[in-house]
């Protein structure tokens, strides 16, 4: 199999527009994320960050535009991509053990309908050890703290042995120890040539953690190395009044289109 880490562009987005009913939630996005980087997707609430991840994963249908992973479509590259949804998007009272959640990361390998093999179980044990959840392996998931829940999600993604990791706010509501542990895991992945794309909220840590930044607010504000694009001026355009105006207008359009105003 060809080595994907040699391919220079991991994610390529061209003229991507996503509508919710008649309003654009993402508008004419075009940018590239280089292979082997840790990339932050940054923007205010409602800027379409989660929508962006879901769209490039094929969970939402774009109105127009194209997304490529290593030059191929999502359908061909599905097994190379791991997705970590927001922690709050699932029901943590669900009757399932820590081990079984992690095992979901092996589904593409074990062909969904088959039983787990010894190799699958070993892999799960190894990764749970890595994220420090071994003592919780047989516990029900609602006994985990917020940080532990996030580590479990990361463990599941690690088990997918992907080349691109798309994560929706992996640091939201986790303790400092977990954040540090996750960062060291992410660094290891990067050293193996993997590409990480994280929806991120904490602006103060952007320059420490990331070597690529995408500033997003419905449209693309900037994309590039933090030193070049993570400027006060760009942040102003992402979070400031001008984008606020766009937000207001898009709400207005939405209301007009659906006949609410």
């Amino acid at each position: 199999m060809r080595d994907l880490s040699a391919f220079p562009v991991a994610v390529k987005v061209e003229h991507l527009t996503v509508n919710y009913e008649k309003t654009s939630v993402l508008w004419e996005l075009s940018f590239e994320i280089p292979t082997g980087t840790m990339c932050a997707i940054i923007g205010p609430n409602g800027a379409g960050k989660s929508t962006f991840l879901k769209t490039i994963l094929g969970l939402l249908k774009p109105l127009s535009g194209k997304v490529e992973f290593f030059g191929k479509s999502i359908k061909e590259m599905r097994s190379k991509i791991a997705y970590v949804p927001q922690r709050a998007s699932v029901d943590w009272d669900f009757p399932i053990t820590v081990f079984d959640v992690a095992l979901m990361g092996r589904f593409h390998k074990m062909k969904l309908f088959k039983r787990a093999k010894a190799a699958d179980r070993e892999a799960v044990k190894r990764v749970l050890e890595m994220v420090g959840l071994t003592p919780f392996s047989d516990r029900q998931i609602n006994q985990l703290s917020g940080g532990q829940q996030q580590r479990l999600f990361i463990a599941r993604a690690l088990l997918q042995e992907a080349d691109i990791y798309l994560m929706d706010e992996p640091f939201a509501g986790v303790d400092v120890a977990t954040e540090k542990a996750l960062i060291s895991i992410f660094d290891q992945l990067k050293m193996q040539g993997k590409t990480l794309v994280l929806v991120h909220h904490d602006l103060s840590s952007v320059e420490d953690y990331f070597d690529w930044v995408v500033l997003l607010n419905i449209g693309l504000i900037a994309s590039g190395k933090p030193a070049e694009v993570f400027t006060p001026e760009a942040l102003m355009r992402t979070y400031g009044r001008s984008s606020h105006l766009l937000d207001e207008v898009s709400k207005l359009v939405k209301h007009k289109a659906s006949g609410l105003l």
Partner: protein
Amino acid sequence: MPSFLDFFLDPILRAPTLGSMLMCLASSLIGAIAFVQRRSLLGEALSHAAYPGVVLGVLFAAVFFPEWEELLALSILIGAFFSACLGLWVIHKLQRSYRVSNDAALCLVLSLFFGLGILIASRLQFTHSLWYKQIQIFLYGQAATMTDVHIGIYAILGLVILFLLYLFYRPIQAISFDKYFTESIGVQVPIFESIISILLVLSIVVGIRSVGVVLMSGMLIAPAIAARQWTHKFSILLILAGAFAVCSGFLGNYLSLQIPIWFHLPNLSLPTGPMILLTASFFCFISLLFSPETGLISRCVRMISFRDRRYQENILKSFWKKGETPLTFREIANREAIPHWLMHFLLYRLTAQGWIVKTGKRTFQLTLDGHQRAARVVRLHRLWEVYLVDYLGQHAGKVHRSAEEMEHILSPELEKELSELLKDPKQDPHSQPIPSIKEIL
């Protein structure tokens, strides 16, 4: 009086018994999926939404094929199925396009469809009064008049559901827990969701014949609630829910026939449907009471055993503070706010377990083990006081109360952590010595 086996062999009893058991199995399995997806109320809305379909089905058969009684059941099934599907679609539409919240949409569809059904039914009462009886059956269910045909229908549905669950257990579990992740690895989530919805509608449509529109949702959910109290695994939850449901199905039939006989009340007629549901609810109630983790009983046991431990350790502490001198019963009893009868019991147990030893008539003394255990309690107490004063900046005069509680709670791991954090202090904030680790081992 029918024997136990008659319920499975007798041509008249067999159909309702086996039919109910199979129906309960099918609906409990599909209901358990809805339950873990937190969509319990969907069953309630859809069973009511099926009602106008039942009415129209009867009307259709009555008008066009009044001579063909066999067609009636089919006509009702088809009517109910489409009516429930329409209800499902309206719920989706309300939520998606009109931003009506889930519970409001369910509520609206439930009352709208049910109201519509009642409206048409009450008209039929006068125009087709013979057929009206057929409609009434579906309101509260009537298992007693079921035939072998029903067994066949329920058996097929039950087998289909069992087969699909066996084959697609993993994807169903994954979708129920984390839909987006499952879709991201390439599982066709919408197809599975549609299959689950259709099976839910089907099990409701065939189930209302025996338990009725009004009670149907209980049959979907009750076994799952009962099962959830015993397990944290989805697979075991499904098995337990199925088992509870099958038992309810049988017991409902059995009891509705036997209770009037047992109590010599030949005029008492207990309808099967409600009886099945009551049995299922009884399983629920028992499970909630005896659940090993959250059950009332096990919680009481844990509370009592904690209180017991606190009493024991406090008594040991009293001995420890007196040093080597033995204490008489009166001296001990005066120090603790414990009734005398309980004190006798506690001292008896402490002696039996080897913490204290009887040295004379009504006098007791700590054993070496007892001394160590008491020292540990005192150590925890004083460590906690140091922690509160040094680290949380509380006043030394106010920390005793909290320490009285914590001395019984702190685990050896926390003790080690505290001791490391505080650098193994020798004195508590009241300048009392803290027993060293060596004294405890």
